[in-house]
């Protein structure tokens, strides 16, 4: 018999009471999103997996000490963001894997017609060539389909600011269209 989909708050409470399956359900629900969010910041699969594990460990730490979590999803993303910042501080600069580096001169060649069906690799190339702060919002808005308000809470900016960044992102993406 399958249980109905449980609210995050209830799963968190159950997990804090020792119900490991509840925490497992939270992991099932958010691990892919958090991995994706991290991956499109760090660009390296192994690092993204490592940071995602760390993220859920930190989440568990907070649950176990009784931290009140109002919005679990936003909480996950915030922890993930902090881990990414720590990761970059421990390295000195952001490095894109060579396969995703597109020379400025080649940007004109890397363009698609509006109706062209792009595969995952092509979409990732475009995404990873957008500036990091804009890319973050693109991932949250167009891939994870979060609302402006949710995004504003995660990135700690005002909704107006988020809207302006989305607009800039759309302008950037326009460069890739013939």
């Amino acid at each position, binding site marked *: 018999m399958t249980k*109905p989909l449980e609210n995050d708050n209830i799963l968190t409470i159950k997990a804090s009471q020792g119900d*490991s399956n509840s925490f497992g359900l939270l*992991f099932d629900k958010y691990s892919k999103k958090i991995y994706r969010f991290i991956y499109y910041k760090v660009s390296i699969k192994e690092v993204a997996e490592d940071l995602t594990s760390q993220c859920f460990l930190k989440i*568990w730490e907070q649950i176990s000490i009784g931290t009140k979590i109002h919005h679990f999803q936003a909480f996950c993303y915030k922890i993930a963001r902090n881990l990414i910042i720590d990761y970059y501080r421990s390295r000195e600069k952001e490095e894109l894997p060579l396969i995703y580096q597109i020379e*400025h001169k080649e940007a004109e060649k890397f363009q698609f017609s*509006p109706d062209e069906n792009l595969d995952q690799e092509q979409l990732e190339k475009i995404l990873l060539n957008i500036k990091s702060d804009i890319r973050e919002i693109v991932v949250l808005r*167009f891939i994870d389909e979060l609302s402006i308000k949710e995004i504003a809470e995660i990135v700690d900016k005002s909704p107006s600011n988020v809207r302006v960044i989305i*607009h800039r992102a759309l302008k950037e993406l326009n460069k890739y269209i013939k």
Partner: protein
Amino acid sequence: MFEKLVNQFKKLQETGPSSEWTKNTRNFLIAKVQQDTLTQEPSCLSQIKLFSNIWFKRMVPSSVKVISIFAIIALIGGTGLVAQAEYIPTRPLYTVKRTLEKIELVLAITAKSETKVHLKHADKRKAEAVKLAKKTSLSTEEKEGLINTVVSSLEQDISAAASSLEIINETNKESGKVLELAKKITQTINENIGDLDQVKEIASLEGVDESVSEVQSNIEESGNSSLEVLIKEAESLQGDEEVISTDELKQIIYNKIERTSGKINGIYEVIKGINPDEIVIYKEEFRVGTTDIKIQLNVEEVINEAVEKLTGAQEILNQAKLSLEAGSLSEALEKVKKSNEIVIEAEGILAQIVDVETEIEAPSQLINEEEVIGEQNIKGVIETITEIDNATSSTSKTTPDVIE
């Protein structure tokens, strides 16, 4: 055009970790949870402890609140009643009033009672906002600040009520209670939105207009989930024992359509007031040596983009009206939500012009966007400026006095 590209990004939802990693990490985390909670007492005892902890935390959450409770009990006599009448946030009695409200919230045992308390507080904030708008003895800045404080709290209460409803919806087997609450939330939000229009009208201040409009949008958005619950119930029962009549729901959705239409018209009015020839906005500014270089924004293009969005939003809104007339409430609501999202995008586009201060600069410093394509132009400019810098040398250092 980029919308098709944007839609394609959804394919990246497939991106994920390897299944092996997922399985191993999940097992590791579950083991970690089990290990960390291993020293917990047997489940029934831990349940009792947790239950009593919850009750204890609700009654006596912290020493600060213990002191507050004793202080409030000491004050409660006449002061508490007097405090209820206070509506100006900067006054001491208002703090007493809000503390009493927090206690009321702490004492709300169930999610249902918590929701009702939040709605009650939201109504109080709305009443305060109306009184503040009517008050003539406040300066403009003071009035704006106080109204903004009060409506922000209103928004928080509505948002909290909507969140509580979601929890109740997930856990409560008695759908009747959920529907009753959803109805109460929907009606409260509707009333508040209407009364906040009154606040804007009475106050007639730009600062109040903006912040109250934002709060209205946000509480409307918060109310969508309760409205969906009611629509779902209405569509399944179809006339039998409805908590809220279909006509009432239609009216609520119709009001939403009207408000969105009003927003669209408001933005068109803003656009009409913009003369692209009189505006100079720089989308990028940077310094090379001692020279400021500014890249101008194409204002007409921005306006056209915003107008395109608004046209799209209006079309979807017209479709929402047709769906409403056809009796398809959920479809109508979805279309209104979609239209609102596009309006917000249009506002974001216009924010580049509307939110930025404009200035007029000496033409020699301006570089038109079309002229700055590729690195070569910039490099050429930089080389020239470097030569000038080197020629003038560091001995001719400018001081603030000289500039003045």
